[in-house]
């Protein structure tokens, strides 16, 4: 009977080939990526002149996108590490989703920085001429570290699942079988292997939390160590981290819904998961709202002359539509949706997740651009076009291409590996069937 249940779990959770919808989805993403690649080729050929980046706004949507990617990547540490260390088991089916979001996002965060540099060959100079005193160097170090830690956290729990997948040689096909064997043929389900793996996962869970905090704090310091209106804040580290957890959790809500619906995983990603994840999102949105109030209310109360133009631009001026849209969609509306039990049902939670992610992207745009347009010392004799910023089609295409690229990595991962940990699900199912005292 137990064996039957185990087989059913394996059958349900093994990676599936792309259906018609999957193929359309992949082709669509590839087209967006190709357009982005074409735009990047133009940027390489003609230089950053093809962008709207000028002396005032030298960080546009590329850096907004970078901050967004770094933010969303933090979800890996939240779901995998924080909930694992606090012995919360309901999140088990979500750990791999969170980790692959983290890995793909952090990889594209690194890429988008190189895109922003204009001359990618100069990335090399960062290592030959970089200064330890610069937050940019800290960011390079911490992003690389976080990528490795996240990859390890993805890999260790995958080992028992690789063993299971290797057993389905005919189903896998030649290339996938080779890949599985390369990655996990040595896994024999031996107790000593489990012992090492469990200890490694525990060490990684402890390690990834300070690294995750460091990655987004350092990203916030790229701004906060610069004396500019809107960035000159002691609140920035905590403000960034709280926002990052929120957007990451919103991303997980979307991914949960998509995988559950597309792969028919209703038995594994249940309504209860949406309910609990919805509550987590409400909590994170409230925390982020609190930091936003701190970040904007205190400067607005003082309304220093040098910051007035920036703040009024956000509240009632040029950027006010985006500002209020971002505040409403990333925090207020999702709180109102998810605070009710009905709102935490899959469909509503999915909508709330989309609102959080879209609103959060625009929030990052607002962190970067308006401040650059309002320096303490305005430049003289610059063309009036420099004092406004609207991205060119090349910038939109590259930013869109990078987002599509991250989704493509998640999609291919879900095609190759089980998106819900098979072995852990079997163990938890077995534990649930055992009498309580034996668990």
């Amino acid at each position: 009977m137990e064996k039957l249940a185990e087989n059913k779990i394996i059958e349900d959770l093994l990676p599936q080939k792309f259906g018609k919808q999957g193929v359309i989805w992949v082709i669509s993403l590839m087209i967006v990526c190709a357009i982005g690649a074409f735009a990047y080729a133009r940027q390489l050929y003609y230089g950053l002149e093809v962008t709207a980046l000028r002396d005032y706004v030298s960080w546009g949507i590329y850096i907004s996108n970078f901050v967004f990617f770094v933010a969303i990547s933090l979800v890996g540490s939240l779901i995998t590490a924080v909930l694992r260390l606090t012995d919360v088991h309901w999140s088990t089916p979500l750990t791999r989703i969170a980790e692959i979001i983290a890995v793909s996002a952090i990889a594209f965060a690194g890429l988008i920085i190189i895109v922003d540099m204009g001359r990618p060959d100069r990335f090399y100079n960062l290592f030959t001429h970089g200064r330890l005193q610069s937050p940019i160097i800290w960011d390079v170090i911490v992003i690389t570290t976080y990528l490795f830690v996240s990859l390890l956290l993805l890999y260790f729990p995958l080992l028992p699942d690789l063993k299971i997948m290797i057993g389905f040689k005919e189903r896998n096909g030649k290339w996938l079988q080779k890949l599985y064997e390369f990655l996990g043929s040595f896994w024999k389900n031996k107790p000593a292997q489990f012992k090492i793996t469990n200890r490694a996962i525990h060490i990684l869970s402890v390690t990834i939390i300070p690294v995750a905090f460091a990655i987004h704090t350092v990203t916030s310091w790229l701004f906060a160590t610069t004396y500019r209106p809107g960035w000159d804040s002691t609140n920035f580290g905590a403000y960034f981290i709280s926002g990052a957890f929120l957007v990451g959790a919103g991303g997980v809500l979307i991914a949960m819904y998509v995988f559950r619906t597309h792969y028919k995983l209703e038995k594994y990603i249940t309504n209860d998961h949406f309910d609990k994840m919805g509550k987590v999102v409400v909590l994170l949105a409230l925390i982020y709202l609190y930091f936003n109030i701190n970040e904007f209310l205190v400067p607005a109360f003082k309304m220093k002359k040098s910051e007035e133009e920036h703040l009024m631009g956000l509240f009632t001026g040029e950027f006010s539509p985006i500002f209020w849209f971002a505040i409403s969609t990333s925090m207020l509306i999702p709180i109102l949706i998810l605070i009710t039990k009905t709102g935490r049902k899959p469909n509503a939670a999915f909508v709330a997740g989309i609102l959080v992610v879209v609103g959060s992207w625009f929030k990052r745009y607002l962190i970067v651009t308006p401040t650059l347009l309002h320096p303490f010392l305005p430049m003289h004799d610059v063309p009036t076009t420099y004092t406004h910023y609207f991205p060119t089609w090349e910038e939109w295409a590259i930013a869109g291409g990078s987002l599509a690229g991250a989704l493509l990595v998640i999609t291919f991962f879900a095609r190759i590996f089980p998106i819900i940990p098979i072995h852990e699900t079997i163990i938890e199912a077995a534990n649930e069937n055992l009498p309580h005292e034996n668990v």
Partner: protein
Amino acid sequence: MKMFKFWLLPMVWIIVFTPAILVGQTADKNTLSLNIKYFNDYNITHHLLISAKSKIEGKFQQIPNIPVQVFISSDANKANLIGKGVTNAKGVLLINIPAVAQAEWLKSPNQNFIAVSPATQKFEEGRGELTITKAKIKIDTTAGHIITAKLVALVDTTWTAIAAVDMVVGVKRLSSILNANETASYPTDSSGLVQAEFKRDSIPGDAKGNITIVAAVLDNDIYGNLNAEMVVPWGKYYTYESNFDHRTLFARRGHSPIWLALLAYTIVVAVWSVIIYLFFQIKQIQKIGIE
């Protein structure tokens, strides 16, 4: 009759509107005034500043791009032309009095200058005149850091002391004069003298501690602007100490503060030791699987 009608309308138009257009053009022109200031630069050179002004919309404004010719003497003929130019963005033109004007300069103890601007599309002809009495300041020091300055003016052929003229005494800074003490200016006495005690003891000087003391008459109606200066070793020694190679947060690569380097490298080594350890654990798992 038809021909008459054909000519009548254009003729009426010309008769009615031509005077109006001409009057309108004349009425658009503004009057232009040229103001001349004379400067004696440390008894070495002399220059004039000509500023062009016009009343536009009820306010006096400095007018740029005005062509100006400047003459020495009251006769604006070509032989007396000492310089010409165009006013800058601030409506000011600087003309140095050239050495060739020496003959005219030596003729009299008083000197006339005339500035003339031809009429332009926007402005009427402008003209300005200035008469100065030639004067100079002699500066010296006495014991106890006392600055002594004497104002003398040319009367007939003799340099004569001038009383009751305000004089500023101080230290030459980048674009102004810093008072020698709390007194802003001193009137010259019957001997043409002023004395000012130097109280700026801590003022930085050059590498040898030298500073330049200055005595000046500013914007005087009779004598114009006069200056005299003298270098004295009354300043503090100032030696520049470069901190370029020191370990600071703003230093170059490889010169980060020790505390930062220690902190950063400790964190990096600690975290990467864990990562490397975990890679070895993967090897260990492989080994167990093969056994």
